[in-house]
Structures are given as structure tokens and as C-alpha cells.
């Protein structure tokens, strides 16, 4: 436990001091919200655009921070030998992984707070109807997308390619799932793709707790799909993730 907090402290320090990571992972969703919030001023699906976009960007933030960000960090550390070196110290691997996941949770929680604050101050967005449910959704988002993130890190071989690969996944996924605006008028085949993406269901849950004041457990099938994706990613990671650089 002491080791966990020790590592969490250094993970946070490393994250916030790296300007690239802080901008790409933390600021980017805020920037997109500022842009999209200025473009859409009317209603989306009968709800105020600023509220729908806020929920959408919380979802995008989960995918960007926990999936893309985590995969980039882990592949980078594996290929540069950081993980290999850690493996020779007494730090238990489980303590390290949990510290990295908790650090991701801290970042995404702060990002959610920042998004809500931006929405309130800049666009007059509503306060969350079910704040406790939103907190649960933040944890759920990290559970799902970090699971996928470590799974992706296990499959992606090169540190050069990881950024491109995860963004090719995250940006279209966010677009199709409705993070950036309404998907009602999308052609059927795009909606069919959206119907299998985890972010689609995660957004349903965030919308539910944020806008409708639902319980996080109101839509159990959406919850199950989101958790199922996370578990699938974790299984891939357990099977394929290694600590050594892939030089051989």
C-alpha cells in the first residue's frame, strides 16, 4: 500500500511534468469542447447542445486518457526499457500496474471536473443530475478503456507507431459514437458500426447519469457491454503483454 502511494506520487509527477502528455491527454478534450461548444448553440436530440457535448467529451476524455494515453505510455516505457529495469527491482508488478491505473483515474477525474467547469462557465451547461453516478461513471470509464488500453499496448509493437494507431481508433470511434455531435443522420452502416463500439454504450451511461439523473445501473445491458470490452482488453493483455522491449 505504501509502495502503491509512492509509485502513484511519482506517476503523477512524471505525467504533469511532461508537457506533451499533459497537452495531448489532458487539454485536448477541453479544447475540443471549447470548439464544438462554440459551433453548436442549439439543441441536439431535444437537449441543450452544451449538455450533450459535455457528456460526449467526458466519454471522449475516457477513451483518450485511459485508452490512447495509457497505451502510448506503456508501449513507450516497454520499448525504452523502463519496464525492464523496474522488473529487476523489488517493486511488485501488480503494485506498479495498479499505481499506473490509479494515476490514469486521477487524471481523468480531474479532466471531468475541468470539462464540467468549462461547460458551466463558458456555455452555461447544467450541473450533473446524479453526481455520485457521474463519479461511478468516471471509474467505469477508466475500467473499460484502460482495459482496452493495456490490451492495445500488448499488441502494438513499436513506440513510433503507437500514437498513430490509437488515434486512428479513438477519433473515428468518438465521432461514430456521438462524442462530437448528433449521429441521428448517419448512414445505417455507420450506425451499425457504432452499435458495437464501447464508447456508444459508455456515452449512454454518462448521458443517463449526467442529464437524466438516472442511476449508473439503470441500463444494465449497456453497463455489461462496457465492462465486457474492458475485460476483453484485459484478457488480451494478460495473454500477450510483456515487460521486455520487443527487440528480438
Amino acid at each position, binding site marked *: 500500500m505504501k*509502495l502503491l502511494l509512492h509509485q502513484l506520487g*511519482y506517476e503523477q509527477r*512524471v505525467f504533469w511534468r511532461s508537457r506533451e502528455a499533459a497537452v495531448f491527454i489532458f487539454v485536448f478534450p477541453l479544447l475540443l469542447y471549447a470548439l464544438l461548444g462554440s459551433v453548436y448553440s442549439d439543441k441536439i436530440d431535444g437537449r441543450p447542445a452544451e449538455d450533450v457535448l459535455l457528456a460526449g467529451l467526458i466519454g471522449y476524455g475516457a477513451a483518450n486518457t485511459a485508452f490512447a494515453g495509457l497505451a502510448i505510455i506503456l508501449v513507450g516505457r516497454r520499448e525504452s526499457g523502463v519496464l525492464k529495469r523496474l*522488473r*529487476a527491482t523489488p517493486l511488485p508488478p501488480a503494485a506498479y500496474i495498479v499505481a499506473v491505473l490509479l494515476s490514469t483515474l486521477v487524471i481523468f477525474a480531474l479532466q471531468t471536473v475541468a470539462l464540467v467547469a468549462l461547460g458551466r462557465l463558458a456555455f452555461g451547461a447544467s450541473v450533473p443530475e446524479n453526481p455520485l453516478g457521474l463519479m461511478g461513471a468516471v471509474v467505469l470509464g477508466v475500467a473499460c478503456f484502460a482495459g482496452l488500453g493495456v490490451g492495445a499496448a500488448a499488441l502494438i509493437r513499436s513506440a513510433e507507431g503507437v500514437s498513430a494507431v490509437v488515434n486512428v481508433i479513438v477519433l473515428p470511434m468518438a465521432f461514430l459514437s456521438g462524442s462530437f455531435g448528433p449521429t441521428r443522420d448517419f448512414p445505417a452502416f455507420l450506425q451499425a458500426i457504432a452499435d458495437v463500439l464501447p464508447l456508444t454504450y459508455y456515452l449512454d451511461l454518462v448521458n443517463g447519469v449526467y442529464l437524466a439523473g438516472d442511476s449508473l445501473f439503470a441500463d444494465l445491458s449497456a453497463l455489461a457491454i462496457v465492462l465486457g470490452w474492458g475485460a476483453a482488453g484485459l484478457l488480451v493483455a494478460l495473454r500477450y503483454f510483456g515487460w521486455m522491449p520487443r527487440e528480438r
Partner: protein
Amino acid sequence: MPSAIVVRDLQKFYDGVPALHGISFEVAEGEVFGLLGPNGAGKTTTVEILEGYRQRDGGDATVLGHDPGRSPRALRERIGVVLQQSDLSPNLTVRETHLMFAGYYARPRDVDEVVELVGLGEKRDARVKTLSGGQKRRLDLGVALVGDPDLVFLDEPTTGFDPAARRSAWEMILSLRSLGKTILLTTHYLDEAQRLADRVAVIRAGQIVGLGTPSELIGEAGKTEIRYREGDRQVVMETEDPTRALHELTSAALAAGRELDHLEVRRPTLEDVYLELVGDEEEDRAG
């Protein structure tokens, strides 16, 4: 003296191809042991098995009384590892980096002491990304020492160094020995092994082809070389009895009133021994 490392008939295969053909050696406590060999000979494979990174496919290995294949935490408390290539977080300072690693160990050394020991006292609050290459390698060493290990693995610690940086790295390694640490060093520099190692194992194609102190290895090869010029012909004789050979040669020359031009008497260096031991392979590579 008890052994820090015992390796018996160690075997490793990569995709069915043998990389280690059953090698055996022991490293005593407090000894500096050098693993010497060309690239691809099996040095790093051997070390990575002992560090707990790779599983052996046959034979036995004991490191500080533990099975490295299980890499128990109790073993990881007592070893320090300097890898050939491994980054550290560029945005932490030298002192923070040491503190982070110190936190992993039950009984770490005093962090400021370690920072001084590796000669980074003046850089303690500098970010890692601002360090020079040589300073980064010292940081690697500091991070490996911060847990106060009994055994330190150094994998090609001076590859890519300029001569001055090498010399200061050597001094640091010798100072580790004076602290009583056991050191397993891999290198492909002969002078490095000759300077630092108490004993050396020469590995070639996954087999140990020479084992002993540098002077034992040289002694085994044993032939002294005598060279001189006769007209425009270079004469080279090898002898195990240089006193007699030289005496006969010079008396004959004196009697005939000849000069032995460019007369040289040379003891073999570790390099000659090494080249003899691994020679075929080096030629294979060149061809």
C-alpha cells in the same frame, strides 16, 4: 569463499536454436567476473537468465542462494542491474529518480550519498533530460546501487564511451569492488576485462572456451613472440622458452657479426588469447 553465482550446464534455445550449449561457471562473493565474447555469443542471454528476465531451458543456476528463474522479491532486493539500453523518466530530477527507486527497497542506501558516489552531486536537481550521455550512464549506475545490492550486473557498461568517460567508469567500478560488491560484467572490450575483472569467461557461440584470471588465460596460451627483420624479410618465432631462444638467436647473430633489425620480444596480451579463442567466429563475421 562462498559463491554468489553458480551456473551449471546452463542451456537456452531460441525457437529451437541453441543459444547456450550448457555453460558452467561460478562467481565468488566479492569477485569481479567478466563475461567476454563477440556480439551474439550468448553473454546477454546468460546475464538475462541470471537477472531473472529469461527462463533457462536446461541446467541449474543459483544467484545469492535463489533460483533466478523464479525471480523472488528477496533476490530482487539484493541485486542491482545496469542494462545496456534503458531510459529513465526525462522529467524527474537526478535526486527524484534515485528517491523513486529507493522507495522500492526495504533497506535502501542514503540517496544523497549514492548521488555523490556516482559523481552527480552537482547535478542532483537537474532534470534527467538535461544530462549528457556519460552522466546518464552514471545515473543508471546510481539507480542500480540505491538498493544497496550485494551483486551488481553491468551489461557492457562503457560501450559508446569516449576514452576519458571509460576511464572514470572503470574507476567507479573498481570503487564498487572495494565496497565488497560482487560484480558480473559483460564486455567485448579486452582492455576493460583485463583491467577490471578478477576472472574472465570467454564465451563463443554459446560455449565457454576459456575461463580463468586474465594472467592464467594468457599463461595458457603461453607463447612468447620474437620478431626481427632479416634483409627485407620479417621473421616471427613463437617460443615457450624465450630466454633460451633469445640467447641462441643473439649469440648466433653476434658470432656472425649481424644486426637483428627491429628486434621485438612480445608477451601475448589478453587480446591475442581472446582472438585465438574466438578467432573463427570473428572471421566468420568478417566473411
